């Protein structure tokens, strides 16, 4: 699909421009399309050579394939039967005999299901708590004249410069009585200074006229946050919540360090033992048709990846804005 797309576009372009050698027409067309200056080739730019066009297309196809192939592969393999897997060795790209056996095995095992609930719980609770705290702090620090805001901001920003390290963090979690609790999966990574900076920068760039107007109408600081700032910041909040949610969903470090009890494991820990270390899923009900080991492993992977694949398309158009406000642009 992509191949057709790339070559089609690159091939049709010279034909169109060839019909209008003056170049001004191309400019007008570009303006008419209204997509800004980066769209289409400007009149002074020479036509790329045939080899250059093809080379570019081939590289782009390879890049996309390098990402897509493993994704499609794990999904297809999870539905594959034993004969499909033997035939292809490695990842199956198209299961000839699709079966849900792997998923039945995974979900009757109980282990994955429990880990899935832990991961969902940690992600939902964690993201919500992180978001509340980050929004509050970012808004509180978004006005320079607030007493002490500078010191508080620096306290948060300095944490980007150092990392306390594994041993002190472990001892802290133990001393706080969080060891082997679900809270240990959330609390140590509640906030990221990066996300704080992203949100704060966004809040600071909101038009002051709007905030002042709300203040004149008698709104207090909290009211301004809820009814003016937040409705204007939906996009950036969506990005920050994605960053937090993905971090919690993939989190493995906290569980590895702070959980003793494998009953409390979130999904990444289960992935580690059943997919990477190759332990078989215990507790699969006897008498069930046994699914191929590899399909079962891929099914667990799919369960871990699918939530990310589902939210990704809705949020990806905001990334550039989110990342750049936080990084070089300030």
């Amino acid at each position: 699909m992509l191949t057709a797309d790339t070559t089609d576009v690159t091939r049709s372009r010279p034909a169109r421009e060839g019909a209008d050698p003056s170049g001004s027409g191309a400019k007008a067309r570009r303006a008419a399309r209204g997509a800004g200056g980066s769209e289409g080739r400007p009149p002074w730019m020479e036509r790329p050579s045939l080899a250059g066009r093809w080379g570019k297309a081939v590289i782009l196809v390879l890049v996309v394939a390098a990402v897509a192939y493993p994704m499609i592969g794990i999904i297809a393999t999870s539905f594959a039967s034993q004969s499909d897997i033997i035939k292809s060795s490695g990842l199956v790209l198209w299961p000839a005999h699709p079966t849900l056996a792997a998923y039945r095995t995974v979900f009757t095992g109980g282990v994955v299901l429990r880990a899935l609930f832990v991961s969902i719980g940690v992600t939902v609770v964690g993201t919500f708590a992180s978001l509340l705290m980050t929004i509050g702090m970012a808004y509180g620090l978004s006005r320079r004249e607030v007493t002490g805001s500078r010191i508080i901001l620096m306290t948060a920003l300095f944490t980007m410069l150092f990392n306390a390290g594994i041993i002190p963090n472990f001892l802290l979690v133990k001393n706080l009585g969080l060891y082997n609790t679900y809270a240990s999966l959330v609390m140590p990574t509640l906030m990221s200074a990066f996300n704080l900076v992203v949100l704060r920068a966004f809040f600071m760039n909101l038009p002051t006229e709007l905030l002042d107007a709300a203040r004149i109408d008698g709104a207090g600081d909290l009211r301004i946050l809820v009814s003016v700032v937040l409705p204007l910041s939906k996009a950036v909040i969506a990005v920050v919540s994605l960053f937090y949610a993905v971090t919690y969903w993939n989190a493995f470090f906290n569980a590895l360090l702070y959980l003793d009890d494998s009953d409390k494991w979130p999904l990444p820990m289960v992935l580690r033992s059943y997919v990477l270390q190759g332990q078989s899923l215990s507790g699969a009900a006897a008498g069930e048709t046994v699914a191929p080991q590899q399909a079962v492993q891929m099914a667990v992977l799919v369960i871990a990846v699918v939530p990310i694949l589902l939210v990704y398309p809705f949020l990806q158009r905001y990334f550039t804005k989110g990342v750049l406000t936080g990084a070089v642009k300030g």
Partner: protein
Amino acid sequence: MADTATGPPRSGRREPAHPAGPQVHRLSLWQRLKRDKVMLLLTLPGLLYFVVFHYVPLLGYVVAFQHYEPYLGYMHSTWTGLSNFSAAFSQPAFWSATRNTVEIAVIQLVFFFPVPIALALLLNSVVSGRVRRFVQSVVYLPHFIGWIIIVSIFQQVLGGAGLLPHLLGKVGLPRYDMMSDPHAFPWLLTLESIWKDAGWGTIIILAALIGIDRGLYESAAIDGAGPWRRLWHVTLPGISPVIVLLLILNLGNLLSVGFEQILLQRDAVGPDAGEVLDTYVYYHGIQDNDWGVAAAVGLVKAVVGTVLVVGANKFAHRLGHEGVYRGADR
């Protein structure tokens, strides 16, 4: 260190935008606190988090100077001065971990770093906006996939039973398993990092590319500069500030090679090739309860790491760039 973060006084002394206007300075501290109480209360949970989970653990480094016994606690464990440090420095395992850390970091830096730049240049040269956006959304995706899943995917493709050994076997070559070859370990890590983050890294470069004045290209083209000369004389100078900044910041993170990524694969290649400073601390401290030595190594790593990061930032400032922290406070 303080200098890095506080920046020039201009940013702190800007005229306050508060409606109270010029009277601000006449308010007493108490009045100001009262005025800002909502804002300050909103920052409080976040501030508490940063203090408890980032500053308090630093106290845990006293363990580095003790013969720490968990049941005795900090107060009653015996003090041993610097003996933990000398014990660590006399271990070949420590030096091997240091060597691996630096080797992996340098290989990652040299071979990962140019990839996002090249990819961004390629994307930028794609005329069709539709194709460009499609490729962008595909290559950003792996950034959100956790290391466990990525390592599992690589296992399916490069691992012993995976696709590559299978293909090699088919054409009569030895079935090479990259995942368990100690010599290939840094390259394997680099390959995985490229798969995960090269696409994501293009965001910042693409933003810099968009910032280049279109007029420069046009005049260069009119003056007879071909595409390659425009790349060399317009594009590269245009993005070089961002490249230099990224390079410096990467150098600052020299000791922080990915803990999760390496921990997951250390056992496949053995500690001789797979042990880095972070995994050394983890295995000696958390697994073997050799708290003092592990904390000593962690402390050395943390101090050197912080010096590198702060130094890199200072250097970036000296070159006239806004470092991460000053940029954040604008």
